[in-house]
């Protein structure tokens, strides 16, 4: 039969390839047959995925026997997985609220242990736009709020013209793009608009875009950037590091023109206070965006860990990894690879002290 030799060849080929091997992985580091203490699992915010990728790569290179898996399924998924004990640390776009904290609530932690919120990732949120013939755009918070609320619908509206006297703004419609999925970026952006232009932006900060304000919806940071860069007369908001092929607007606050740069973004934590009533090492910040000269639209993501872990080996892994993330070296690596803003030295020191206190 003609088929038989072909079948034989096929079968042998399949048998050889049944178990996979990767050229860039030395034998025994696949993490599958290793002991549990050599695998560290985290889950959470997708905003810091690119940074986590770099941190994981550096950490695994330095410690060849350890595998770290970070799954960017979203802050909420991360927080609930951490509470249920499925992961050893979580990434979250906001710190745990008071009602979510509490000794003994977290399955990974020891019975009397609370959780710690440690800021590890700061990223400025840029207002991006695409308009034929316009490279520079300046907006103040009130005008920006009106655009995103659907109150200003044309590019040559007097409010925009007043802020940009030299630009030839056309008489076309504005398509304002927002995030369709619940997102920390939306939360921080709406918080910015609410803090700086409360009479226009009456809704308080929320993960979901207020339905009443309309506009075009896109999924994910890449979705928003793609929609803005591919459309005509579009404006939106996204992580500054993801803004490619689009113009970035500057924010005019109290006469100062602010750009979403790394230094300006990291300053916001230095001007803010930690949430009251928390433990000594819990660094949950309540961001004050109204300080002078501080670029207000900033996203701060946290690593949520235990004060005391049930298992000493896990505690050591977490301390090593989070310690690396929050170090000057780790923050600089993330800035280069993911475009984030490195934590200021003062905050780095506080985070280091908190990590050292983990048992």
């Amino acid at each position, binding site marked *: 039969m003609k088929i038989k030799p072909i079948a034989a060849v096929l079968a042998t080929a399949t048998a050889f390839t049944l*178990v*996979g091997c990767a050229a*860039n*992985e030395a034998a025994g580091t696949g*993490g599958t047959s290793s002991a549990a203490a050599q695998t560290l699992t985290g889950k959470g915010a997708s905003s810091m995925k690119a940074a986590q990728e770099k941190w994981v790569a550096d950490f695994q290179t330095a410690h060849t026997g350890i595998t770290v898996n970070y799954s960017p*399924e979203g802050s909420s998924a991360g927080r609930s997985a951490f509470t249920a004990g499925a992961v050893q640390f979580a990434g979250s776009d906001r710190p745990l609220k008071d009602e979510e904290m509490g000794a003994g609530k977290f399955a990974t932690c020891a019975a009397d242990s609370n959780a710690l919120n440690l800021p590890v990732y700061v990223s400025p949120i840029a207002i991006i736009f695409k308009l034929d013939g316009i490279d520079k755009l300046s907006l103040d918070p009130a005008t920006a709020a009106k655009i995103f609320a659907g109150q200003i619908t044309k590019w040559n509206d007097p409010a925009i013209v007043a802020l940009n006297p030299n630009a030839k703004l056309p008489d076309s419609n504005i398509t304002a793009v927002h995030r369709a999925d619940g997102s920390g970026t939306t939360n921080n952006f709406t918080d910015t608009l609410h803090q700086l232009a409360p009479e226009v932006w009456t809704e308080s900060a929320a993960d979901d875009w207020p339905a009443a304000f309309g506009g075009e919806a896109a999924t994910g940071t890449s979705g928003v950037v793609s929609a803005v860069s591919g459309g005509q007369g579009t404006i939106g908001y996204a992580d500054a590091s993801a803004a490619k092929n689009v113009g970035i607007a500057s924010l005019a606050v109290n006469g100062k023109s602010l750009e979403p740069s790394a230094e300006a973004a990291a300053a916001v934590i230095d001007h803010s206070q930690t949430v009251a009533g928390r433990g000594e090492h819990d660094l949950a910040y309540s961001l004050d965006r109204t300080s002078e000269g501080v670029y207000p639209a900033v996203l701060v993501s946290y690593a949520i860990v235990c004060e005391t872990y049930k298992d000493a080996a896990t505690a050591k892994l977490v301390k090593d990894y989070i310690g690396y993330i929050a170090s000057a070296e780790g923050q600089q690596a993330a800035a280069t690879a993911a475009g984030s803003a490195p934590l200021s030295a003062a905050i780095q020191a506080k985070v280091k002290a908190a990590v050292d206190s983990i048992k």
Partner: protein
Amino acid sequence: MSTLNPSAGPLGARPTGGTGPLLGGDTLTSGRLPKATTWVALVASAIVGFAISVLATGAANAGLTVLFGYVLFLLIMEVASRVVEGPRQASDRRAGNLIIGAFLLALLPLGSVTWEAVSNGMARFDPSFFTNSMRNVVGEGGGGVHAIYGTLYVTGMASLISVPIGLLTAIYLAEYGAGNRLAKLITFFVDVMTGVPSIVAGLFAYSLMALLVGPGAVFGFSGSVALSVLMIPVVVRSCEELLRLVPNELREAAYALGVPKWVTIVRIVIPTAISGLVSGVILAIARVIGETAPLMIAAGFTASLNNNLFANPMMTLPVFVYDAYAHPGVEPAPYLERAWTGALTLILIVMLLNLIGRLIAARFAPKTGR
């Protein structure tokens, strides 16, 4: 003596032969459009369509040319055919032209998608993509071997679960369940199952594993369960239809010879339908192999190779593609290239499966007259 004398028509004495019913002839002796008519009409309508599109928009527009040209072509052929050949032939030509038009229309988006995938995917289609994973890789380099193996494991296990269950159910519905209540119930609910959103299947598998194994259990087999929920209805529906199409005479001949029912099914009905059955199974595999949402939730995410379906997260190609697109680093180009190559690999895997399926079908099918 000819009964085909057309001279006794409603319009009185008419000229014979060579004219359509509109001019008094009848269908059996009506004329035929010369073969060249189609081509002449095509060229003429293309030219006129081009002219109209230039007049309408001031510039040469391919889309409008094709649109106007096609409509014009249909009109010309309809009128010509009706006058010369008759309404039945005109109807036949019209149907043929519409069907070919539908085919060409569908080629546009399908061709566009394939072209996108192939041209963008060739950038990283090199040996390093197929031998490296993403462990410790940031930016340039790396590959998708962990995702490729993950997809093969997860989809293979899903097929192992779904195909036997689906095929046996299809056999039950087609052979044993004629009109009884259980069969009606199964058919109805299988149809409902086709509408389960893929993300719900993922959530279901995740929760099932949380019950069976413990909370937050994310591993390859969970992804297989999610995919099975999506695959089984497709397998059942397509196989059932094809088993029903096997002529009853074959079954009855077998029964008449004393062959037990189950042997009839296994040795006669299934081989007769094998080509379609294999097609149906490949269709089901193709349907689920590209599902992103359920695998992200149930099988999880990792940058390293994992050969164990039952422990630790396992990366799969669609999740790899989505992740590379949605979370590129500061320089997105290498990530996007890897994403497209991953997508191209997925398509090629299904192509390979299709070929293997055809080989199997050719081996087992009885020779038919077609």
